[in-house]
């Protein structure tokens, strides 16, 4: 685009306020409000808002802690099971209970099935509708014309001859790949239900283990569906690679859509029962044994993989959200179980005081607070995102280089995956390399590879679980007592990123319960220091490639930027206002706006 130096001339710069409210094909309520410079094809400002508040952390005060997983599951209709699991990990720490190995494997089998389901339905029934033929025809007709003539590199694997054929496969409710994925999302949820009972609010995921009655039949039912999924994934990943590479090649600069600096958070997922004891004091060690490695990246550098250190770096800030501060409220925890000091802004010490009020983009405009990572080296609060989940999980795991289960291995710069032979396809190897940039396309691509990653972790845990069942060790739950006093934390990954639950128990009841799902990290509003949240930041960096002008502007590049984070806001986004209100028209030389 920038190869030819244009002569400087006076021209009109048209800045319009555009809003999309609600943003659909996500879970929950999200509004995106922007100022767009149509002369220079840039987004100048972005505000992300959420318009629903329920107050879980308020009405959970005083309840029996054993109810926490049942209640917190209801925070989210797609990551409900992730919440339930996190709450159980949290309670295991509080009660000092370690489930039998089969119980831990059951958690991992349920949660890998959830990722297989969630990434499939979100990729190809929600996010990739933004890349389907119908959409590209409406937003970038000349690109579609190119796609019709561009052969797909991996057509021998996935069967689509051209890129446009792939796009047609993704048309909602008519495309064959869209419809196939809808069915994949069903049998993967059946896999979940084998161990979790129900999706998305499970009935069998408990503190102390899994209450499903696990037999050979349970394992067989899981196995046959898992192998069917492998066959699907072998076609999915190369198909997505062809589609995404086409955008990067045909639209130079597309790697800036949804771009942010690589500031990532990942809490790790899937404990290995050979190592985990759910004791906070040993969390550094067992955290690093997880099948997804925990870690924090700041400016593209992996700064830690230590869950204890990670816990102490978390801060909850206000700024633009409808809440009052808790400076004058009770401090529940001054030291963690290892004696480290705990900040007043840490979730353990947060008190939630809602204050609904008029929306004002210059002041308070969202129900989403602003979690940040405190970097003591620079004394700053860093705004990190989850990359929609898979991007951060794979980035951290690959860089840390700790994971090796044979057919899935982290090398320090990449992940090597080997998929088993399936009904009609031979073995296949995939390599995911750590991308240079954190952007919309790479987040989407990572999600696709994570479908394979999750299936492989599922396979490993299935084989391990089968060893238990075949040896007659089919106990999957251990009893426990609720202590009078405890502080605890559960760290896990929802499909779309970090999920933590912090709890304080006093007199055997919940004194404070603070769930922090991925959405507050990604959809957060401007914090007290004025730092925008990740959606806001990523959209503000987004160049506009859409061929429509301001009159019939769809905002497709913005939609792709936002959806790459796999938004999920039963905890808030919205886009509306049609042709947009003209904010200002100024005269300025091109390029200097």
């Amino acid at each position, binding site marked *: 685009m920038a190869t030819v130096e244009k002569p400087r001339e006076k021209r009109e710069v048209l800045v319009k306020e555009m809003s*999309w*409210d*609600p*943003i*659909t*094909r*996500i*879970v929950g*309520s999200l*509004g995106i409000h922007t100022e767009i410079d149509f002369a220079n094809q840039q987004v100048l400002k972005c505000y992300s808002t959420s*318009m*629903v*508040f329920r*107050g879980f952390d*308020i009405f959970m005060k*005083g309840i*029996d802690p054993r*109810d926490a997983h*049942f209640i917190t599951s*209801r*925070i*989210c*209709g797609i990551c*409900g099971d992730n919440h339930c699991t996190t709450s159980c990990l949290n309670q295991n720490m509080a009660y000092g209970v370690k489930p039998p190995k089969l119980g831990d494997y059951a958690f991992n089998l349920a949660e890998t099935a959830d990722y297989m389901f969630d990434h499939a339905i979100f990729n190809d029934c*929600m996010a990739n*509708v933004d890349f389907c033929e119908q959409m590209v025809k409406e937003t970038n007709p000349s690109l579609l014309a190119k796609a019709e003539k561009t052969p797909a590199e991996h057509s021998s694997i996935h069967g689509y001859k051209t890129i446009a054929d792939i796009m047609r496969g993704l048309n909602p*409710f008519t495309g064959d790949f869209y*419809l196939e994925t*809808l069915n994949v*999302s*069903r049998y993967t949820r*059946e896999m*979940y*239900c*084998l161990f*979790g*009972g*129900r*999706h*998305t*609010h*499970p*009935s*069998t995921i*408990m503190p102390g283990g899994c*209450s*499903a*009655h*696990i037999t050979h039949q349970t394992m067989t039912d899981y196995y046959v569906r898992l192998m069917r999924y492998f066959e699907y994934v072998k076609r999915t990943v190369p198909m997505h690679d062809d589609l995404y590479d086409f955008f990067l090649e045909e639209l130079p600069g597309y790697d800036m859509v949804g771009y942010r600096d690589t500031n990532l958070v990942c809490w790790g997922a899937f404990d290995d029962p050979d190592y985990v004891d759910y004791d906070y004091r040993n969390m550094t060690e067992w955290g690093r044994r997880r099948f997804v490695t925990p870690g924090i990246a700041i400016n593209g550098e992996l700064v830690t993989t230590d869950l204890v250190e990670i816990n102490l770096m978390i801060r909850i800030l206000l700024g633009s959200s409808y809440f009052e501060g808790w400076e004058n409220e009770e401090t529940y925890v001054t030291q963690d179980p290892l004696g480290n000091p705990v900040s007043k802004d840490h979730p353990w010490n947060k008190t939630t005081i809602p204050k609904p009020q*008029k*929306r004002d983009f210059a002041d308070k405009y969202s129900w989403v607070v602003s979690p940040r990572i405190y970097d003591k080296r620079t004394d700053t609060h860093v705004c990190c995102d989850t990359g929609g989940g898979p991007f951060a999980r794979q980035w951290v795991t690959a860089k840390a280089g700790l994971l090796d289960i044979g057919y899935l291995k982290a090398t320090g710069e990449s992940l090597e995956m080997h998929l088993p032979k399936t009904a009609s396809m031979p073995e296949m190897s995939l390599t995911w390399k750590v991308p240079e940039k954190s952007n919309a396309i790479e987040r989407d691509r990572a999600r696709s590879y994570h479908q394979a990653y999750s299936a492989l972790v599922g396979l490993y845990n299935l084989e391990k679980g089968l060893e238990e069942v075949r040896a007659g060790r089919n*106990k999957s*739950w251990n009893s426990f007592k609720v202590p009078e006093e405890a502080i605890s934390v559960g760290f896990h990954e929802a499909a779309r990123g970090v999920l933590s639950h912090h709890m304080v128990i006093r007199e055997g009841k919940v004194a404070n319960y603070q769930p922090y799902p991925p959405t507050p990290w990604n959809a957060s509003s401007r914090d007290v220091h004025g730092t925008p949240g990740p959606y806001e930041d990523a959209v503000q960096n987004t160049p506009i490639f859409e061929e429509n002008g301001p009159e019939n502007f*769809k*905002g497709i590049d913005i939609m792709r930027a936002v959806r790459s984070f796999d938004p999920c806001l*039963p905890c808030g986004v*919205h886009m*509306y*206002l*049609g042709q947009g209100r003209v904010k200002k028209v100024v005269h300025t030389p091109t390029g200097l706006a």
Partner: protein
Amino acid sequence: MASVEFVPRQKETEQVTAHVIWMTTGLSCDGDSVAMTSATSPSLEDLITGVIPGMPRVVVHNPVLAYENGQDFMQAWWDAEAGKLDPFVLILEGSVPNEEINGEGHWAAMGTDPETGQPITTNEWLDRLAPKAAAVVAVGTCATYGGIPAMANNPTGAMGLADYLGWDFRSKAGLPIVNIPGCPAQPDNTTETLLYLVLHLGGLAPAPDLDEALRPRWLFERTVRESCNRGGFSEEGLFATEYGADYRCLVKLGCKGPVVKCNVPVRGWQSGIGGCPNVGGICMACTMPGFPDKFMPFMDEDRWGGVASNTERFTMGPMVRYFRRRNIAKKYDVEPEHRTRGRQLQTGYQPRHYAK
């Protein structure tokens, strides 16, 4: 084309277009919409492609799967309000907050008012659309009765749809609110009830038979115990003492099944797989108007359930169990004696007349 009709007035009813305005912006988690995508009897595709002869065309406006965004998506809401979509079914997912106590803000909202730039509350939408809807449906326990956001100590004053619109509310087509409880609602319960209503609006089915809590009777008249595959254990006085490997009746571990109206033990969770006590999970009563307050702590035995299970355990149960086991072991688990090798036929076969 031959003029055969597979149902009465098929050509006419298939001309009707029924819109479904599905609001997920109650105080909800969108779990009912997400669960609905896993339904297979009927599936969402079945509904919108019209698989049943005579069914009106169905257009579903739901944010979780919609192609459109923002204003394009909201157009259906404006059209429904303007009377341009007729008939339409209004579905609410999530509980209704009390916006009379919201200061100057909102607890739940959808879309932005073009005049003020402020969000439009969910309650405002309900006030605008409910009087114009042919049928009003509450899906999930939050929308039906209040559910989790309405539990004690909540700051939003949340309630169910019938608490907000009135239990005697009647839609434009004369129907009461239709409640499909469950947390989330069982996927096929949602799509099947929707199909039923659409057929009713097409004149192909009578008004749905609802019980006193406005639930479809054919789905909710049996309790969990009455359809549970562990119910037999309680009849014999056998109760699980730990979660997981012990597959006996779960009431002593907190299962609320005996007093809960729900069909999940019959229908499974999806495609017949999964569920609660049938898999090993305690029933937490998530379909009930008293949920969750009246059932917490979930993992403790209900007091009256304890009395009932102790009675089973120490009176009838052991006797029934003793004689059944004995009959099984001595009689039913043993083959008839005539099945044997040898030169003599021992089956009692007689070629010329029938055995008496």
